[in-house]
Structure formats: structure tokens, C-alpha cells
């Protein structure tokens, strides 16, 4: 605090008459503010909101806001239909900025935000908190001052009627349903195959995996937490196991930076990787002791049986072949045998890791579940020969650690 005593009140803002020149100025500054906001949004998916990478963009945004506050006495950014208005004036954007503006519009709508306003110069901390709202996992509730747990000092949001909830609850329900659909799809597929009945349409699995990938993007931690769902050995085990492998693989693929298409391939291969179990008698699958020779032979054949269940459909697209080969190759060891190194694609190598991790952390008829730490230790020591060492390190260092962080608070 300075010791000079209270400041005199600021002079009233002089409102200039609206002329073509002021409109043009507003257009330029408004466009600058929008472009800065779009750039912030673009990076908000890749960096922490506290990261220095945002400094220059936030400076530009702050500068534009200050100029508008200086000229119009207020800063009001509104989303009206598909257009952005700044201080009541629709802002034209350069063609190159249109896709970014469309993304900004979508993000604002998803959060129920229809506008942003400031009547005083916003501090940098407010701008940081604004950018925090654009994280992939937004706060569960928004108010006029943003996230109630970290409110703005100066900035204010204008919220649409749907803004009371940012859709988190709805998305969580969708997430649980999509996961359940994935597990149920696999269980029912195995059931149908056992009965010799027509299999479930692959297209349905495709849509389920699309949902999973879309939901992973918007709530990665909650998504990954689904891999904690476990069921005891029984009819439902294989479906839940496959769904967990899909969750782990999609997360792993996302962290590696794989395209949506490749993550879809991974998710599909994960769902189908154990459908060959349909051909193995339940007595073998549920046996708690050591398997006899017949049982061992049956289990050993299961990867080829999974591939058979996929390849018999006759679909020969890249995605279908990825699915079949991923399902088969994920069960192969990387150790050369009879002088030949097994050929295993990236899908197979990634699924092998996710599959083993889920199996090790699940109670099976022949052993209790291992903890996450113990499972990763086994994978990086005793079972290392089964995996691509580079990938298993990345998985353990990133995905397994993320999963550990989703543990319920004690």
C-alpha cells in the first residue's frame, strides 16, 4: 500500500461518437482479441494453463481488451448465432482464422458460455483463469465469475440457460454407458460365437469405440479410471477385460499422439483381441489349478482363434486387417524362436502391454490380482521379453502412472 492517501476517482470515460473510423478501429481490435483468444484455446489442449507458452498470447488479448476499454469503456465479447460480436459490433475474420473461430464457438457452447465481459482492466491472473476454463476437463460447474473454486476478479461470463452444468454429469453417464456397451458387446459376441449364432455387427463396435475416443478426449482421467472396473472370473470377465484393454490402449495411443483413425483401430483390436476364447470350453477357462495338456493347447490356440473370428468376415480394409493382426500378434512373445523374429505390428505391441497390465491387475482363478506397482514391476522384469522395451517404458511411465492417480481418495 502506498502512503499517499486515497486516489481521486477516475475521470468519466469519454464516449466518442460512432463513426466509420471507430467501427473500423473496433473491427481491428476486436479481431485481434478474437485471434488471441483462439490461439490460447488451441494451445490449451497441449499445455498446462500455467505454462509460459501462453504469455505472449495473453499479452495480446489483454492489450486488445485494454484498447477496447479505452475506446468504448467496456469489453463485451458475445456469441450471437455463429458470429462473434465485440461491443455490439459483428467482427469479420480473415479466412485463415475461421476454423479457429469455429472451434472457439464450439468450446464456448459446450461450456454454456455465450459471452465474456469486463468493465475494468482484467489482471493477468483473470486471463490465466479464463484459459483454465478451456482445459479438456473443465470444472464441473460454471458461474458468472467462472469456476466457483477459482473465481475471476474482474472478468465476467455470460452464461446460457444450459450453463448450470457443463454437461459433465451427462458426459459421465455417456462414458459409463459407452464402456458398458463395449464390455457387453464383447461378452455377447463370445456368447453368439459359442452358440454358432450370427455374430454382432462390427459396425456397432465401431460406433462404441468412436464414443470412447470422443469421451477420452474430453475427460481423459475419468476415462482412464474405467480401467479400474474389474469383475471376477465368469461369463463377464472377457468383456470387461477387453473394454479395459481398449481404455488403456486408447489412452496410450492418445499420449503417443496417434491420429483418431489409429486410435480407433487400436480400440477395435482391443475389443476383439480375446473373442477366440469363445472356442475354448468354459471348464478350461474357469479352472483354478494347473491346466492339463489339452487345456494348455486350447489356450495356446486362442490368439489364432481370435484372428479366425475376425478374418472369416472377409473384410480386407486396413482397419479390419489391423484388428485381426492386432488380436493375434498381441499374444506373441517378442523373443525369436527357431531363428525367426516374430513380426508384430505396433497395434499388437501396444495391445500386448495393455492386455498384460489389465490381466495382472485382475484376480484370476489361478491367482490374486497384483497391485499397479507390482504389475508394472513384473512387466518390466520377469515378462520384459514379451514386450517392446521402449513402449513398455512409456506405458509404465505415463499411462500406468496416470491410472494410479485416478485412485479414489482414502
Amino acid at each position, binding site marked *: 500500500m502506498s502512503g499517499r492517501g486515497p486516489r481521486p476517482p477516475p475521470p468519466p470515460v469519454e464516449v466518442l461518437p460512432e463513426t466509420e473510423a471507430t467501427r473500423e478501429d473496433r473491427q481491428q481490435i476486436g479481431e485481434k482479441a478474437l485471434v488471441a483468444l483462439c490461439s490460447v484455446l488451441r494451445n490449451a489442449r497441449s499445455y498446462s494453463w500455467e505454462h509460459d507458452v501462453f504469455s505472449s498470447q495473453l499479452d495480446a488479448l489483454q492489450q486488445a481488451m485494454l484498447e477496447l476499454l479505452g475506446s468504448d469503456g467496456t469489453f463485451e465479447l458475445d456469441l450471437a448465432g455463429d458470429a462473434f460480436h465485440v461491443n455490439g459490433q459483428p467482427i469479420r475474420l480473415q479466412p485463415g482464422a475461421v476454423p479457429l473461430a469455429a472451434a472457439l464457438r464450439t468450446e464456448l457452447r459446450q461450456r454454456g458460455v455465450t459471452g465474456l465481459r469486463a468493465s475494468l482492466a482484467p489482471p493477468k491472473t483473470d486471463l490465466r483463469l479464463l484459459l483454465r476454463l478451456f482445459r479438456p476437463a473443465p*470444472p464441473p460447474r460454471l458461474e458468472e465469475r467462472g469456476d466457483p473454486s477459482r473465481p475471476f476478479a474482474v472478468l465476467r461470463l455470460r452464461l446460457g440457460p444450459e450453463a448450470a452444468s457443463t454437461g459433465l454429469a451427462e458426459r459421465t453417464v455417456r462414458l459409463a454407458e459407452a464402456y458398458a456397451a463395449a464390455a457387453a458387446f464383447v461378452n455377447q459376441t463370445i456368447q453368439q460365437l459359442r452358440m*454358432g449364432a450370427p455374430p454382432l455387427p462390427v459396425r456397432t463396435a465401431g*460406433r462404441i469405440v468412436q464414443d470412447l475416443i470422443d469421451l477420452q478426449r474430453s475427460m481423459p482421467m475419468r476415462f482412464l479410471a*474405467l480401467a479400474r472396473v474389474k469383475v471376477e472370473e465368469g461369463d463377464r470377465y472377457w468383456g470387461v477385460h477387453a473394454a479395459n484393454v481398449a481404455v488403456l490402449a486408447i489412452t496410450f495411443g492418445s499420449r503417443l499422439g496417434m491420429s483418431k483413425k489409429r486410435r480407433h483401430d487400436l480400440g477395435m483390436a482391443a475389443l476383439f483381441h480375446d473373442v477366440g476364447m469363445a472356442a475354448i470350453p468354459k471348464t478350461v477357462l474357469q479352472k483354478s489349478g494347473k491346466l492339463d495338456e489339452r487345456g494348455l493347447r486350447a489356450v495356446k490356440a486362442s490368439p489364432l482363434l481370435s484372428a479366425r473370428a475376425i478374418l472369416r468376415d472377409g473384410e480386407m480394409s*486396413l482397419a479390419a486387417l489391423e484388428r485381426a493382426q492386432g488380436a493375434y500378434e498381441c499374444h506373441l512373445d517378442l523373443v525369436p524362436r527357431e531363428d525367426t523374429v516374430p513380426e508384430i505390428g505396433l497395434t499388437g505391441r501396444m495391445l500386448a502391454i495393455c492386455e498384460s497390465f489389465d490381466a495382472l491387475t485382475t484376480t484370476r482363478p489361478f491367482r490374486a490380482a497384483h497391485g499397479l506397482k507390482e504389475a508394472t514391476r513384473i512387466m518390466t522384469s520377469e515378462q520384459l521379453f514379451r514386450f517392446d522395451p521402449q513402449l513398455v517404458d512409456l506405458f509404465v511411465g505415463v499411462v500406468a502412472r496416470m491410472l494410479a492417480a485416478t485412485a*479414489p481418495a482414502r
Partner: protein
Amino acid sequence: MADADAALGHGALAGLGRALARISADPGAAAQQAASLEPALSGLRDAVEKYGTLSVAVEPGALRFEGERVYADELGAAGFCSRLYRDGIRALTFRRGLMMPDLLAFAVAAVPGGPEGEADAAEELWKADLGSIQYTAAPGDRLDGAHPAAAAFAQEVRELAARASEAVEYVDADAALLDRTQPPPLWSEEQHRKNDPQSWSELARRGALTIERIVEEDLAGWDLEALEESFGRLLDEMARRAEVPALVAALAGAARMGGAHAPSFRAFLGRRLASAERLGRAAELATAPVTAAAHLLPAWTALLPDDAGPALIDALWSARPDVAPALAAAAARRCESCPNEVAEVLREAPAAIAQAALAALPEADRARMASEALEHADAEVRTQAVPLLASDPRLALERLAPLLDDPALRATAAEALSSCGAPADEAAAAIVERLSSSKLGDEDLAALYRALGRLAAPAARAFLSERLGRPAKGFFKRRRSEQEQLVAVEALAADGSMSALRLLEEAADPKRGHAPAVVSACLAAAERLRSRRQVREGDR
């Protein structure tokens, strides 16, 4: 919307429909597709610029805008509207920022028969992730109510969703933690390219080997026929994409595949590979500029059934000259199924083709079919055919004896006659007849004498003995006779019988008055024969 505005939307969407219909009818290259889409893009951009967004409903076989049908598929169920509707797409929305790459990607996903075949259009659009073209789809993550498993599926989803909700709701939404989940990707673009080449060819090759392993390990079960069909489709797709190394690997794997079902698998495959269209494609691919191309036709034709001869002959006449010999050889191996056609090849095809066919003739038909090649205009073909006649003694005697008059084939024919297993006296008589009536050069003389010796027939020995004993007369004739005596000595040595040995010993007697060279040759040949006989007796 005002009439003029509505007309803008109608025109843009109708233009899009027409452009996609053109692409459906003739997919062509990306450049052609872009040219087809250019007018539609311009119309759509005008419309979205005006309205902000432009939405159109998708119906079975049609597009509807503002309640009016703006485009109808002429192709009916095969058109793009039907495909979009079938795959669950109910509305399309075009937004500002629409550019050609997005529209092209949309066309690839929407038009039937794209590069990935009949994929799900909704899935393709979802994967394309187009910012300026969005779609609304019917829910597709549930089973159709008519599916026998629909009720059980729905019940299981309800039960598992409750457990999944529990797992999710306990997640601590700590802000810092959530932020840490979105750092930059772990792999660079280069690492992705290196670790994940996304090659259809590689995947297809491994897929084919997987099917072969399933069959080999007798795990195909009830799915054997379906797997056969899949394998066939995989080969078709490899051929369509000109993936020659993958094709060769898959065919070679099928040929060496073991297991109880392997023969029936190969039989199915063979029938499929023998179709005229596929054989034609194989002949085309065999000329591809890759190393594996040289192995394609041998690997392909090895799997064809015995009755594939006519198809091979058809393919052969339209194939390039450098690959036709491989087809001719494959046809010749199956000549039982097309004897007349193979005979025609042996008589009239270009020399390289006829020679390839000759070399591949199966033993059972070898002599009969090879005799056709004796009519070929090319001497090398005829020469190659002559030894093949030896496999049928009766035919050999009938067809080879006249060839002893042909200076080009005489030596080869004599050699073939000596080894054909025909009655030795008859063969010897034929040779002796030519030796008595023709004037032969040194090489032919030696060949015919050698053949006589190899026959080891009494008539042959008598002739050789007579020629060996004939005294020389006159200076030039003496030189000629001495030459003849020397080849007779070699022929008797080739005869190898006791009678031949005696004849040689007698001729070596100085009292006979033969030239020193002849005497020396007789002594050497006799010694050689004796030692050979001793070895043989020692072996006993």
C-alpha cells in the same frame, strides 16, 4: 427464408449431389474428383457465407433442404444418399471455412466403393474429423431390436454401466492433475512414421500368413470355407493394389502349408486363381518392376488345378512375350486338359514359348506332345523336342528314324534312338540303313556310331565289326576309313559287351594290318573295357 436465399441453398446442395453422383459413377483420381467438386464448392461456400451454416437432411436416395427434395440418386440403392442413410447419417451441416480438402475427404467417405471398399460412411466421416462438414447420425452403439442378442445386450449394458459409473465418480477432479494429462505427444511425427508405417501390403501379407497358420494348425473348424473366401479376397485385393511381394509370399505360403485341410484349401484357391480375369491380372503383374515379379507366375500357376490348361492357354495368347513362357510351361504341365491347344503352342508359338512348354511336359504325355514340336519352324525347338520322344519307344522308333535323314537333327535323333528303349535291333537297323546310304560328316558319323555302340545289339556289333575290319584303299580314302575305324572302336567300347571286347582284341592284332593309330585305339579301348569289367566283377 426468402425465395432467392432458398434458391441459393437449393442450387448449392443440388450441385453437390450431382458432383458426388459423377464421382460415384467414375471415381477416377483425386485431381479429377477435385475438378468435379469445384463448382459445388463454390456454390456451398456462397451459401454458408450467407447463412453461416447450411444443413440438409439425408433420406434414402435423396437430399432434402427446407422440406424440399433438392437431389435424388439416379443410382437408387447404389447411390451416395442411400449409402449415407444406410450408415446412419441423417443430416449434414456445412459451415464457414469449407475448403476443397474437406470436401474431397467428405466425397471419399460418402461415395460408395472408396479406396477402403464398402466401409461405414459414418465411421469414415468421423475418422476424417472435418471441421467444416459435420453430420448427425442415428445412434449406432446399440443393437437393432431385431437382433437375437439385443435384449441380453441391453440388460448387460445397464448392469455394467452402474459399475462403470462407480469407478468414474470417485475420480478426484483435481485441476493440476487433469492438466497434466494433456502434455505434448510422446512421439514426434517422425517417430510415428518409423514405428507405425501403416502399410496395407505388410498387414495383408501377415494376414495371409495368419490364415495359413490357422488352417495348418487345423483350427479353421466350421469357418474353413469362410477363411478360404477371405484368403481369396485378400489375394484379389493384393492383385488389385499391385502388391506383388505380398502376393508372392501369400501364394508361396499356401503352397507349402501343411495340415489336414491344406489340400482342400489349395483346391479352392486353385479354382479361384484359374479364372480368366485373375490369370490376366497375374500376367500383368508379372511384368511389374520389382524383384518378386519373377516369382509370381511360378507361385501362382503352381496352385492351379489340373484342368486349368485352357485358361492358361487363353491367358498365354494375350500375355506379354516375356511372361508367356511361364504360362506356356504351366499349360504344358496340364496338357491332359488341353492337348490340342498345347499341340498348337508346340507347333506354332514363338520359339521361347514352345521351348518353355516342351521343357514342362509331364512324363506321361511327353513323347506324344513333343512330336508336335517336330513341326515347329525353329530348329532349336525341334532339336529340344527330339530327346523327349525317347520316353515312348514305339513312337520314338516311328518318328526318330526319319529324322536321321535330317542333317540338323540327325545326331540328336541317333542319340535319342540309342536311349529310347525300343527294340535294339530295329533301332540299330534304322541307323545302319542311314549309315549305309548317306554320306555323313565327321560329327554325324561319330554320333551315329556312338548311338550304335550304345544299343549293344548284335546287328550293330556286326556292322561296327565290318567297318572296323574294312582295309583302307587309296590315299584320301585311307584317311577317311581310318577315321571311321576309330569311331567304330569308340562305339565298340561304348557297347561294352564281351563280344565287343573280343572284336577289339582281334582288331588290335598286328597281323590284321590296321594302321598304328587304329591298333593303339583298339588296345586302349580293350584295356578300358577289361578294367571296367574287372571292376564290375569285383563289385559282385
